[in-house]
């Protein structure tokens, strides 16, 4: 798994899924990103990325909670897997390592 590199967007979505613990689904993810980072992302892009992450085994999903608001349709909730957490950790370590090597410009 360490051979697979995550794109920036994939990493972002993965992280947000981790943040939302068990409450992550399409629309909520979009809202969270908008709130936390002031960044507008597309629902369709989020969905596509989620499926890709699921293919890679970094998240898992299940259908829960129908409400009348969605016309009786259930939501697909995503949860980060341990592999996903491991991947995020690895990314952080790598980033930190390189960050240390950057020459620090004195004020």
């Amino acid at each position, binding site marked *: 798994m360490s051979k697979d590199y995550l794109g920036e967007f994939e990493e972002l979505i993965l992280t947000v899924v981790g943040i939302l613990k068990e409450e992550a689904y399409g*629309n909520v993810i*979009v809202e969270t990103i908008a709130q936390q980072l002031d960044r507008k992302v*597309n*629902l369709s*892009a989020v*969905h596509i990325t989620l499926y890709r992450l699921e293919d890679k085994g970094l998240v898992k999903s299940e259908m829960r909670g129908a409400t009348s608001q*969605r016309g009786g*349709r259930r939501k*697909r909730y995503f949860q980060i897997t341990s592999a996903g957490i491991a991947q995020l950790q690895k990314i952080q370590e790598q980033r930190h390592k390189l960050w240390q090597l950057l020459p620090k410009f004195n004020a």
Partner: protein
Amino acid sequence: MKRKKLSPPQWAIRFLEWFCPPELLEGILGDLLEAFDQDFVALGPKKARRKFTLQVFRLFHPSILFRNHLNYSIMNTAIIRNHLLVAWRQMLKHRSFSMINILGLSLAIAFIFLTLLFIQQETAYDQFHAKRDRIYRLYHTTINTETGQRGNTSAVTSVPLGQVLAEEIPVIQRYSRLASSSGIIRKGEMLSRETISFSDTDFLRMFDFPMLAGDRNSALDDPNAIILSTELAKKYFGDTDPLQETLEISLNDSLIQVVVTGVIDPLKENSSIQLDCILPFEQYGAIIPPKMFTSFNFGVVENYIEIRDHASVHQLPTIMTTAVAKSTTTSEDHLEIGMQALDKIHFDTRVLGNTPYTNPQKLYILLAIALLVLVVALINFITLSSSQALGRLPEMGLRQTLGARTKQIQRQLMVESFLITGVASVLALLIAHSLCPNFGQLVDANIQFKLGWLQLAGVLALIFTLSIISGFGQGLLLLRHQTSQSLKRQFSGPFKRQWFNEGLLVFQFALSIILILGAFHVQQQLKYIQEKDLGFEEERLLELPLGDSPDQVTMRQKVERLKEELLRNKQVLSITSGMNNIADPWTELFFKQEDGNEVSLYFNQVDLDYLATMGIRLVEGKSFPPQMKNGILVNEALVKYFGWTDPLTKQIPGVNFSESHEIIGVVEDFHFSSLHQKVEPLILAIDPSAISSGITGLSTYVWPPNLYQLFIRIGPGDITPVLQFLEDQWQSISPDTPFEFEFVDQSLAAKYIEEKRWGKIISLSSWFGILIAWLGLFALMQVTIRRRSKEIGIRKVLGASSLNLIGLLSGRYLQLLTFSALVACPVAWHLLKRWLSSFNYRIELTPWLFGIIGIGVILLTLVIFSWQSFIASRMNPVKAIQVE
């Protein structure tokens, strides 16, 4: 109504439901609806709907679409297998029917394949050179310094051209000459004649032929170097490394030793420049005399230049012409220089070098024909297949009852079409492979049959497209029936739209009849031309160029000597000489008249034996007596032109004549130009000074007047020994002029090569066209017979004989075919008249011949297809009328 606007667009939802995999649909659609509700509150109904639609489209993405695929095929492999089985059984059950269908389709596919192959190969020429937009080939036009007459334009130019221009003009970065000659390469015991190319060192830097061995920057530096093509390297050295090996080459009279310094891949299929091996240009000195190396007047090589940039590319030709003018002496012809871009060389038909070329018109015409063929074949195929499927309507109905959805049945039909198209394509490829060389001959191009990935992909795409369109089309045609109706074998709906099928039939037959009429008449015209009396004897007549001579006297002496020696051979019947040869246009002279106009008359300087050798007849007067200086002969056309009744007393009118001449005879008109033009007024003279004073202008290929051609009439018998004799004598009498000869009848025939080729193409197309038209008729008849099977059954029961039924069924077709013939004849008439008008001597078009051919086609067709009606009439009426 208001509710509609308050919710997301229904069609967007339907679209999503269509392409989204079911297991994801719920989650995605749910999210979208939730977002819609939020947007509705925040942004209003319109914007919310827009955003919704936008999101749906953005979800139309491969990563979602492909998630469909897996499920789809797993679900359907079983059904597809069943479809294939049924399709296969169908095909076997109706063997002859399927064969006809497949054959028709494969012919069409083969033709399209070859056409596309041809187009692909022709357009790929020279595209592999990286610098092709900066490389040009030079061509020159000779302008006679005395007469200002523009001579030939040719890309075969002089040796110093590129070199001098590159030195003078800074924007020319590199140049290279390219020449070729035949030589004998020897290695050890192996001896073989090869085509040797000669080039400058920059050649390898300008052109991107891959170098498989050796360094392109230095391979030609060694004066004794040779670069071999991969083919030759294999031929002489097998698998061993040829670098640094030696070979012996014999060029003309010299024998040289060369060292292999490189191996090159000549990419022969895609390159105008054909290479087998390359020697440094200096070696070309063994082939041509030194004066050709420095003179601008002799066109012997191709010159290629590479320019730095396109800044001044439009002025370059003028700059080059000026530069050359500086370097040429006044006695040489004035030259105008032009340049051809490398990637356009292959399609330029005006300016020719040593490279193969194609007329781009051919490509367009062939492409149009291919498209036409495709459309017609497709429609035929659909018609045939659907008429076939008609017979299976009960089966369809049954399937529908058992729960098959329309889409599935359509899919079944598609699979069947796929099978048939697949088989047809395989057959088509076999046909294409075997007919490829014939096709190449037909269009006069070198086509290689290639089945690479590109071609396979193309064929697959074709198969898929055909299957889908055909399946879809059949589905449309057939499935508008209600299930119950299908089971009861009632027909309705689309088949009432016969006009489409019938219109197509009329079109196909009209086209075929036009082609047949065209082919017939083209052949007639060509026959006419070949057999037409030219006014002189063109058979067993040789024409030999005599080269140059400083003056008339020397030339006459040479001719006399030749006559003396050559007439010794009993097979040599007679010899004469003349100024103009047979193939090129003759000298045209202009004589200014009193009223200021110029009269144009043709002219040829001849000797005393001209009329006898050429077989030209005199109608009045006599031929040239010896020693007469100012006598001339004129032809009938000239007499008619001036309206003379007593030509022997007349003079050619013209204000400038200072001396008088005498018209001593009138010759019968003979064709000295192609039969495209009528016979013009002509003057024959022994001594041009008889009329030269009156000349005020001229247009000619050869000047000054002298005897440039020798004509030899050979008697019956084997030609080879005579030719040998002539060559031997020639070598001793005229050693510095090469012994070159042409048979006059052959050089005349060569003028009509293009017409002959088009004649062949039209003939073949007419066969093709009628075959396809017959196929169309077959299809239509099938449809009609099935449709009217009940009617036929009833009629039989009521006592109709087979003959009655045949007449009944054929009646409609007779109508249609007659209509096609009536449409075709005027069109063919018009087209043929236009084509024939380019010939001054042509056959006449007779209406009754048109009628006969048209009727013939109709009768033939009906006779062939009456057997089908016959089979229909033998159908068991019980089966037809039975209702289950």
